[in-house]
């Protein structure tokens, strides 16, 4: 029940008062979807427009360090938790998350983006463009395209 990663991400979205949370049914098998979503270093720069590079060791981990490099050259240290069907990534300023579960012949996929409460509002504001319903749908759309290629 609540081992369902999508239901868990929905709870976290409420807790983080997330500006971006989108959930969608994708007409592709779970394995195909999650192989793209969990391949963070190769795929995340294709999925997030302002990201040039996401350096992270491969494989599931409770906590592993990562470094995001923006198109502007801005660098940001992240901590990543990756498990089957579930991914959380957070820096001092923002949180990102993805979740997936098999649903019929396809996959229920969810994506989350939130800013952390902080004094560094101006820097955080830069990330504001990451958030919003349309951004979430664009992310899922790109992910579906990438997954269809596999």
């Amino acid at each position: 029940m609540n081992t369902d990663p999508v239901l868990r991400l929905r709870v976290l979205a409420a807790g983080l008062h997330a500006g971006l949370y989108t959930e969608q049914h994708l007409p592709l098998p779970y394995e195909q979807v999650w192989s793209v979503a969990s391949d963070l270093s190769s795929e995340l720069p294709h999925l997030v427009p302002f990201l040039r590079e996401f350096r992270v060791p491969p494989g599931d981990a409770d906590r592993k360090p990562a470094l995001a490099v923006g198109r502007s050259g801005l660098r940001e240290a992240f901590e990543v938790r990756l498990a089957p069907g579930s991914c959380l990534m957070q820096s001092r300023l923002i949180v990102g998350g993805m979740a997936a579960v098999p649903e019929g012949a396809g996959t229920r996929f969810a994506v989350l983006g939130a800013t952390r409460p902080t004094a560094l509002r101006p820097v955080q504001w830069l990330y504001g463009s990451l958030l919003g319903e349309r951004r979430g749908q664009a992310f899922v759309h790109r992910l579906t395209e990438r997954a269809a290629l596999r």
Partner: protein
Amino acid sequence: MDTQGDAAEPWETAAELVRAAQDGDALAMDELLTLVTPYVTRLCRPIAPHDMPDAVQESLVAVFKGLRGLRDPLAFYGWVRTVTVREAVRVARRTAVEEPADPSDLARLGGLRTGTDGELPADVRDVLARLPVRHRAVLVLRELEGLDEAAVAELLGVPTGTVKSRLHRARSAFRKAWSR
């Protein structure tokens, strides 16, 4: 202080995660979710037996949505109980089809005693499921959670007298069975 060690009380472990989660630490929030889900499930099962997954999910959403407003992280479990019982009663009332419990079912009961895992035996849950939602909530809080009548009344937002009469009616069904 190592609150992650074996000696740490559950509410101390929770309090540390609550503080981090209130600062927007998503990984701590994720751990807190894992920690509190079994407790929320245990409260929801007897109150909303027909809609348990919905009751658990809606309780958890309400808990985490309200987390930033919790002033004392050490009071986390008590607060979770308040939020969960309210949500579970609300969800159960949405679809409540209440029929009176069968006396022969009640006769099989020895009382509201939990097993070693803190869960009610299946036959007790079965009878509870057929009591009215309000009676269920009162019984769970009074017998299972050990709250006094004043605390139950405050939690459910009803007068103490109402709790007393609901408790009396809910218990009398069990008492009839015991006296056979």
